[in-house]
């Protein structure tokens, strides 16, 4: 009897150790897994005082300002692969008595405009600023135009005579919807 118990336990332990198995699992399913984070980032911000629109010393016409910055994370290959939607929020505050056309261009490093957004900002006053929010939702396939860009160029053009006081301000953020494949 004792020998039987010993053999039984020994064989059971041996089998349990060597014969154990991993069942009912499928690691390949992770190839189909998608990470879908939604990432909010500050973008650009600026404030242009009224006198700058009256400046004629540069190469721009009176009443026009323009500036450009690199946004290298946009055309990063990882971003290009994973961004499926991009929401841009531009928050304007106008304390001048002039109306502006604002053009926001997304530009590739080779210089071509891949996506353009235009809006008109109504006039305000120092005591009663004009607040305006522009929300642009860009989904696939159009969003690829955004991720081709490595530059953002922003122009503000006064409609009519340049103002003498006040300023035009802009804040902005981007919300990127990503899909990152497990494959």
């Amino acid at each position, binding site marked *: 009897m*004792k020998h039987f*118990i*010993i053999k039984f*336990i*020994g064989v059971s*332990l*041996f089998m*349990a*150790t060597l014969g*154990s*198995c*991993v*069942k*009912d*699992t*499928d*690691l390949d*399913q*992770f190839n*189909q*897994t998608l*990470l879908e*984070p*939604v*990432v*909010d*980032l*500050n*973008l*650009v*911000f*600026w404030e*242009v005082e009224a006198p*700058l629109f009256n*400046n004629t*010393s*540069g*190469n721009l016409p009176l009443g026009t*300002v*323009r*500036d*450009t*910055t*690199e*946004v*290298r994370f946009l055309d990063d290959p*990882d971003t290009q692969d*994973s961004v499926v939607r991009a929401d841009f*929020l531009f*928050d304007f505050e106008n304390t001048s008595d002039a109306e502006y056309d604002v053009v926001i261009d997304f530009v590739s490093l080779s210089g071509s405009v891949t996506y353009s957004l235009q809006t008109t900002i109504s006039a305000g006053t120092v005591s009663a600023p004009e607040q305006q929010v522009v929300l642009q939702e860009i989904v696939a396939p159009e969003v690829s135009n955004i991720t081709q860009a490595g530059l953002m160029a*922003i122009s503000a053009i006064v409609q009519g005579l340049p103002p003498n006081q006040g300023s035009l301000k802009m*804040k*902005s*953020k981007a*919300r990127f919807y*990503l899909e*990152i*494949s*497990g*494959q």
Partner: protein
Amino acid sequence: MSYFIRILIVQIILVVPLMAQNKQLIYGLDEVPQNLMLNPGGIPEGRFFIGIPVLSGLHLNAGSSGFSLYDIAASDGRLPSQRISSLISDLSDKDFITLTQQLELISVGWRKDEKTFYTAGLYQEFDFITYFPKDWATLAWYGNADYLDYPFKFNHISARADLLSVFHFGINKKIDRKWNVGGRLKIYNGILSGSSLNNSGSFTTRLADGDSQNIYAQDLNNANVSAQTSGLSRFEGNFTSSDITSSVLFGGDLGLGIDLGATYQYDDAWRFSASILDLGAIVHASDVKTYQASGDYVLEGIELEFPDLSQGQNAPPYYAIFENEVEAAVPIDTLYSAYTQWRPVKFNASAAYGFGPTAPGSVACNCFGKGDPYKLESEVGVQFYAIKRPKAVQTALTFFYVRRLLRNLTLKSTWTMDALSYTNLGLAVVGELGPINVYLAADHLLRYPNLAKARGASVQFGINVKLERR
């Protein structure tokens, strides 16, 4: 980008906890010579043993405190993303995954006289632990859009891996009929080490409140994040088997440690023991790199200045200026100075009560109470185990039953409760065929029909040549 998802999954899988170095099945089991490695003040049997090189002691252990492989990879029709979401929600930054492997290369013990027993040897060890980086897994999985005002904390990043070999020499001394004490000197040879510990600070996205000129204040607050490595370059390029040999022998970073232990035999039935292991440290001095980033920064975005440019002039390099600002505020330094790491110290204690007739092969009676306490056929008892880990001391409580069935066959069964499981059953079998001593031990046996559902698994195996006392 699949890199990120793999990192996340690996982190999740690896953060499964186990009391990775608990060897509850071997502790206190006098029949196994390797018992002395767990308590240098144990009761040595025989006059001599030598482990079969590479086969005398193999220990593998893997585990996770918060989930099993089945929890994340079950083929039950649920979407893996649902399971990962549940896990991220359920796990905490205290959940962890451990992986431990030990391999005895040389193991020998010999009796000097009736009261003194020496042990010596060399073993190789790999020990890894990572805590679940809950905040960063959340950020990677969900993003920050729904987590405004939530500080993603850097202290959730905590991991350590060590590959080392250990030369050791121990002395076991029988003080009197009741007391056995022992100590072991260890020389650590650190082959490879990497860790990211004691990180602090946070990253928060919140609506600007006067501290940012843009919509958000994206705040890197008191960030202090570091990663230390040593020995990495040894594994770069063509790594040959001779490199492994020279790595295992001296050539790495040296350290010193001790093990201490004692056994108190109250009477023929009751026995108490305790040991403290790996009280020591390794000084990582060669091939050392410490990557460190620290600082504060509020990320506002890029501020445009609309400068008055002439024809042909370029706009200022805002993006490069922005990058430089970030790098200046949160510099990433690479340091090459030596650093010291304490070994994860372990503590064992047990109380055992023997009963029944004398064990087969033992003297029938210790009638005058003057000789060695005699061994009884059965023992029950309780063991306590603790190990110092980066974030906390991990503990385990084990109830055991030892049965000496024949002169040359001993079984030990255990029921262990720890952070991984309250139902961890284990079994060890020790057999002796002439001078050949063989042991096999495994725990989490209830999960063996499907190891995917186990939060841990541990196997120990060894063969020794053991000579009885004359």
